[in-house]
């Protein structure tokens, strides 16, 4: 009985995940794409829960679907939902190449999963009840993976400083251009 429920949840989550992923790529308005990505992230969190990665699922919903996507929606709204120009004429060599490359990646990965790992993937390791809990993840982060933890904090700091500098620089340049235009109009 429990097995059937897990299968049903898995099928629904996987279907939602893949279809919202396709929606992100196909919507012409970036705002709708960002909304579809929120659905994608939420259904991925369900898959993480099925894989007993509770802390990662919670982090996914809080950090990704929460903070990162809110930033995305703000920027999209700030820029105004500019839709892509519609495809002109037939497919170009660029689009054909893109579809072929993406299809090649998909076929490649699935063939490798089927050939190399097919027999070995049927047995899962036995896990304890605390697997993937915040307690375990926190213990690992502060003992075995302390260096990765600290480096991650440095990466986040550098990204924050970099984006502030980018914004300030663009602002200064924009003001300069405006002043130049005024001077040009004056003469």
């Amino acid at each position: 009985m429990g097995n059937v429920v897990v299968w049903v949840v898995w099928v629904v989550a996987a279907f939602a995940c893949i279809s919202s992923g396709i929606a992100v790529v196909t919507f012409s308005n970036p705002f709708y794409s960002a909304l579809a990505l929120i659905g994608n992230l939420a259904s991925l969190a369900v898959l993480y829960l099925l894989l007993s990665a509770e802390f990662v699922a919670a982090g996914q919903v809080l950090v990704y679907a929460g903070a990162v996507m809110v930033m995305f929606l703000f920027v999209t709204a700030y820029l105004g939902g500019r839709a892509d120009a519609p495809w002109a004429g037939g497919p170009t060599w660029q689009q054909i190449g893109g579809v072929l490359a993406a299809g090649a990646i998909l076929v490649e990965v699935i063939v490798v999963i089927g050939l190399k790992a097919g027999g070995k993937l049927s047995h899962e390791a036995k896990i304890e009840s605390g697997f993937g809990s915040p307690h375990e993840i926190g213990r690992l982060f502060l003992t075995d993976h302390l260096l990765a933890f600290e480096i991650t904090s440095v990466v986040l700091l550098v990204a924050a400083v970099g984006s502030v500098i980018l914004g300030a620089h663009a602002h200064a340049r924009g003001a300069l251009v405006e002043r130049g235009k005024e001077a040009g109009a004056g003469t």
Partner: protein
Amino acid sequence: MQGPEVAWYLVVAAFLFATGALGVLLRRSPLIVLLSLEIMLNGANLALITFARHQGDETGQIFALAVMAVAASEVVVGLGLIVAIARKRIDLDVDKLNVLRG
């Protein structure tokens, strides 16, 4: 483990990665290219967490959390660049953005 085998999760991860790659290669709006990049990163994250479950070792989940932090930084810098480009009244089209000079 109840439910589907590890290989099914990996197939979903492969589909997500290929969908994201398709978006990165085909779309011209840099915003949607960034969103597709997020899908690719999430496909890789799903594979990492699947293998963590398969091996019974949480190192994969630690790696996935690091990937999430890097993805957040990437979004911050990418959105900063897009806003800076839009402020200069340049078309938001990755096919036209082909010089690094400001």
